[in-house]
């Protein structure tokens, strides 16, 4: 379970006349994921989704507030370094090392997640079987197709078998088959009791995949609930229309 309590993240923006101005990319946001749940984070460009997910993933430090995960013994872990080992983070920006083979890459990341050499070998075998990497596990990543690279990215993410996953627009720019592999993976992990935070621009994808939706605009939560609740509340037929209704209402 990942929880963010009243997190705020400020950046400095350059105004027109060279004047600096501080603005809150994320402002006083609190969210929490439950085990076996997919939480969708939606919002227009610049709403603060990526910043929020980076804070949740331990990549960024909130200026105000706290991010923590609960381990299996319900211990609260807020140290960013330790927190990262409880999370599998995948985004459009998390590219792979093209000069490495798939096995080498997984081996390096396995070591960084604290596995010893013998355990890494075993874990790579397990992951490659799950994600069907056997045919190209010893090929250089730069030679792989986009779909194969995506499968390697997911493998990198699940290598340490985290309890929580954060996916920041993972299907952006992917073909249907590659995108499906990610969606299938999220569904599988959900059934395994893992919590997934997922941000996307594809409303249809979010509508059938997410158990709960959090909508962000200008760094603030403007709506929260299950897709059904939100649709009912705004009297819309699908999540796309709900999204437009909420954004319009808030602007």
């Amino acid at each position, binding site marked *: 379970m990942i929880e963010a309590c009243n997190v705020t993240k400020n*950046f*400095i923006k350059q105004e*027109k*006349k*060279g*004047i*600096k101005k501080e603005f809150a990319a994320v402002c006083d946001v609190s969210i929490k994921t439950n085990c076996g749940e997919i939480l969708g984070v939606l919002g227009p460009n610049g709403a603060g989704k990526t910043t929020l997910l*980076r804070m949740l*993933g*331990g*990549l*960024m*430090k909130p200026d105000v507030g706290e991010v923590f995960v609960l381990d299996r013994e319900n211990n609260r872990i807020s140290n960013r*370094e*330790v*927190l*990262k*080992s409880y*999370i*599998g*983070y995948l*985004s459009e*920006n*998390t*590219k*792979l*090392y*093209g*000069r*490495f083979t798939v096995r*080498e890459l997984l081996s*390096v*990341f396995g*070591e*960084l*997640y*604290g596995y010893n050499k013998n355990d890494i070998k075993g874990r790579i075998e397990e992951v490659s079987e799950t994600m069907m990497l056997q045919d190209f596990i010893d090929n250089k990543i730069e030679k792989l197709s986009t779909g194969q690279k995506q499968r390697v990215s997911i493998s*990198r993410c699940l290598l340490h078998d985290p309890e929580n996953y954060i996916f920041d627009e993972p299907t952006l720019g992917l073909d249907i088959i590659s995108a499906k592999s990610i969606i299938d993976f999220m569904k599988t992990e959900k059934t395994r009791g893992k919590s997934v935070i997922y941000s996307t621009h594809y409303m249809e994808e979010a509508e059938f995949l997410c158990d709960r939706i959090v909508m962000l605009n200008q760094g603030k939560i403007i709506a929260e609930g299950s897709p059904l609740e939100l649709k009912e509340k705004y009297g819309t037929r699908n999540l796309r229309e709900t999204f437009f209704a909420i954004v319009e209402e808030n602007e």
Partner: protein
Amino acid sequence: MNRKHLSSLYKKEIMDVIRDKKTLLVMIVLPLILYPLLFIVILQVITMINTSETSNEYKYAYVGKDSITVDAISKLNNWIDSDDNELEYDINPSVKYIGEDEKTLIEALNKEEIDAYIKVSEKDGQVFYKINYLSSVSNSANCKSYLTEELEGLNEESAKEKISESGLDVDSVLYPVVCDSVDKASGEEAMGNVLGSVIPFLLITSVLMGCVYPAIDATSGEKERGTLETLLTCPINNLELIMSKFLSVATIAAFSVFINMISVGGIAVYLYLTMKSLSSKFDDFNFSTFIPALIIVIFCILAFALFMSAVVMCICAFAKSFKEANNYVSPIMIVVLLVGYVGFIPNVKLTTTMSLIPVVNVVLLLKNLLAFKYEIGTILLVLMSNIVYAGITVWFLSRIYDSESILFGESLGNMRIFERRINIKKNSIPSPMDALFVYIIVLIGMIYVGGVLGLKSVLMSVFIPQGLILLVPLLAVIYMKGDIKKIYLLKLPKIRHLLGSIVLFAGTWCLTSIVGAILSQFFPNAEMDATESYMAIVESLPFVGGVLVIALLPAVVEELFFRGFILSSFKNRMNPFAACVAVSFLFACIHMLPIRILPIMVLSMGLCYSAYKSESIITSSCMHFLNNFISVIALYYPKKVEFISNMKFDTPLKVIGFLLIGVLLFVIGLLIIHGRPFRVKEEKA
């Protein structure tokens, strides 16, 4: 720091770098192929030049047909063909042309039909041979040298004949003093001296070439490829990340040097074998005498590789793409290579001060080592200073990597100064790279323009650097359409800030005095070096003039540049503390007094804080003026204020007392400037 993480990251970085074809090309292929190839080409060119020079036939003429001229020329020709002539030339001179008048010969010379012509005259029994030639034509110049040498031979021979005719002993009259010299240097020492000029430059170049591409690849290259964010999802901290990158780049740089040394070593052995076949001097040449020097050279190069890797990585970290990083690194490469030429300058000695100047220290130490000069203290000082500089740079690098705006946002770069003026928005603040560029221009201007013109007069040596510090950034700001008032912090300060700055200065002064006194214990000459440059001004100007020139002028001009222009650029994109440290380092460096870097940095930190918090240049200018004013008093009235000019911390009580007062004043100054604790109290009330 987790060692396992560090070793995994290091392994990953090394794997990543050595699989990059560009790095491999620069690191292995270039040195192993390029150096021998260059050597062969240069050798061929030299041989060609020599062959073309020696195979020529010199054509010279003479003016007139009078008996004196004909006689003189025939004497010369006879001497050239004489068996007594010991000069060995592989040329065939010929008198091609005998001109009736000089005009015709000048035309022939200009058309290169002849290489020179001789005009003969006689006075009081002396025959004058005037050689006319063209220094712009190499064959003509060579012909002149040839004729000069032959005429000197003829002169000696004629003198000998005359002495002999008068019945005197030729040798005792002509050579009453005989000079002979014996080279006592061994072949190894002679070769070490020659290698000492070339090898340091080659090693510096190879370190630079070895570390630049891996550094770019590991920093901006990783950002560009989008793998940095992937790495940051792992449970690692910034220091582990930076250290692994730094160590891998330094390893690659060191390996590159190793490859270069093999390549250069191969050429040296080839040269040795060639020389051995030509000269007997190299028969007893013993390569093993170089082993101790080579071992120290390896350590020295390793320390330098650490330093250069850190510096290059630090610069590359600001770039967001490979191309941008390349642009940033180019000026640094030029500066380092220029400084590397110091090895070629004779009589530049490795003094204590020189031991602390980056790059220069390594070049001079390598030169000393290859000339078999081992001074343990200097060797250790050079090694330690490089390691310390590398440590400071790595720390700075870790601060840069702590900045989320650099990791995830835009780079610090974006140099507006190279953009077309029409595209630059009005009232923009220069970027840190703009500021660094201007700083480098000012520094180079101070070294070259200031150095040359400064020799002309004492005042010029002050006004030229100050003029550069004022004008270069001002022109840059005008070009970049910057808001002068905002960039230079031209604003009246609050009384609280002014008062706080004066108290802060008092504290800073106490602390810098202690640091200065401690340093002077280790480097007694450093203080002399610092004051020596001002003594000429003291001698030529009265006290008021001294105050204006030494205290007021720098207090205004340097503050506008450092706490105005540079600090405004840095604080815009960096966290305030890192910006202040960077500005202070640059400020300390421009004083060109390596020993005083630390005390100047301490003073500058106070100045930066004052300007940053008050947003006014007046506060830091006041502090700067007070500091300089105290120095002026000490320069003009050394005896009256001996307690300042010769401050001694001979007892622990004095040190602790002064330290406590310094810290107390420093903290009080900070609190007054900061002001927040007082406000909190007010709010509570």
